[in-house]
């Protein structure tokens, strides 16, 4: 898998009305590597993830995920990416298990995988309670299960450790951490932690790339400056 580009972006841009949410993003990420995206709120991090997840069309430039051009070949990409965004994408009135079984059916995943994941995130005991009754941390753990249910090759993680306590972070690490062996795009507001798990660092400000470097070359001061 090494040296094969899992994600290739060339001058990618996206507008919301008159406002440029993302522009001029060019990078290449090898399979199995991790790109960490820094930037203040509204910098375009979530927009980038949604483009890679096929939920938004790029309006400028070209995007290739796992060798497939987007949006033209989005059908081939959807089964192979997992998105963990700010929204858990779970129905509040359904239980955790019902939500995961529903998503498992949409991906053609056997129901046994749901039990396996619930056990992995220590939610088996609360799995039959409606999602609306669970704490935010538990919902986030369920959302992690949903994102990795179909064993995606590429994980798109929008601040994946938000709402999680240290014990919960340990639980989800084998699923979404570096050990999972997947290509990952992770957004983060934690310069120290983010640099530690990154193979490539992208800094966005106002939708434009302000920093693109290896973690060793990414100056912490330059990352901090993105937020000023």
């Amino acid at each position, binding site marked *: 898998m090494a040296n094969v580009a899992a994600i290739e972006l060339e001058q990618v841009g996206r507008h919301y009305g008159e406002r440029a949410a993302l522009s001029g993003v060019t990078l290449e990420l090898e399979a199995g590597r991790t790109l960490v995206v820094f930037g203040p709120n509204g910098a375009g991090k979530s927009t980038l993830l949604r483009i890679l*997840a*096929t*939920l*938004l*069309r790029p309006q400028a430039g070209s995007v290739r995920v796992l060798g497939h051009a987007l*949006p033209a070949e989005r*059908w081939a990409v*959807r*089964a*192979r*990416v997992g*998105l963990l*965004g700010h*929204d*858990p*994408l*779970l*129905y*509040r*009135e*359904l239980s955790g298990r*019902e939500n995961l079984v*529903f*998503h498992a*059916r*949409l*991906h*053609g*995943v*056997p129901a046994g995988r749901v039990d*396996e994941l619930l056990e*992995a995130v220590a939610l088996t005991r609360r799995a039959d309670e*409606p999602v609306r009754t669970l704490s935010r941390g538990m919902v986030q753990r369920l959302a992690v299960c*949903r994102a*990795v249910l*179909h*064993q*995606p*090759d590429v994980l798109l993680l929008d601040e994946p450790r938000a709402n999680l306590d240290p014990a919960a972070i340990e639980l989800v690490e*084998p*699923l979404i951490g570096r*050990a*999972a*062996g*997947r290509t990952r795009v992770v957004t983060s507001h934690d310069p120290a932690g983010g640099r530690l798990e990154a193979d490539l660092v992208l800094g966005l400000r106002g939708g434009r790339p302000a920093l693109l470097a290896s973690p060793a070359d990414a100056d912490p001061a330059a990352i901090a400056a993105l937020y000023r």
Partner: protein
Amino acid sequence: MSSDHGHRPTPPGTLATVGALLRKELRVELRTLESVPAMTLFAVTTFVLFHFGLNRSAVDGDLAAGILTVTVLFAAVLGINRLFVADEEQGGFDGFLLAPVDRSALLLAKALALGLYLVAVETMAVAAFALLLLKPPLTQALPELAGVLVLADIGIAVIGTLVAALAVRTRARDLIGPLLALPLLVPVALACARALTPLLSAGGAGGIPGRWLTMLALYDLVFALIAYAVFDFLLED
């Protein structure tokens, strides 16, 4: 656990996807009771209002057919407005779009769900209508009445699903939904009311005029094809 992510699960076919979506839809409705009880209560209240508003304890013929059709239509609008709200507010759209499945499965599942809600509402609403307003007894005409209403329900469900998918992403969805749906449903209302008139006549149930049934069926078919053709574009960015 992650070591086997080279093996890809096979995406489900359209029918399996419809099954999964419909099961989820009905389960959410059973838990929240957001649509069917509100639609039923609205229909029964409307009959009570007609009862007092017309100052008549019994109606028949075209007046009865008109009251029943319009009431069902307005009750349906409540269901149409709620159809995609849980998906929009709880990320169901994105969850569905991330799956490698046929987009038209969502149209079919939502239309089936709305159709089932309408059948449930009509079962109670027709009984209330017979009790509160209708002059002739319904027993004899019941199978034909059910047949006409099912044909109307198909049209309402397809058009309602299409309109709901369009309206739910707008800021004024509660306004846009009815404004788009009601004009499109005029032919359904017209054909349904005309087809019901002989069934609700005091002189005994007459035969249903075939041309109104044909019109209903044709309108259902045309909108089903239009919905199938454009639904993808409504969902995708």
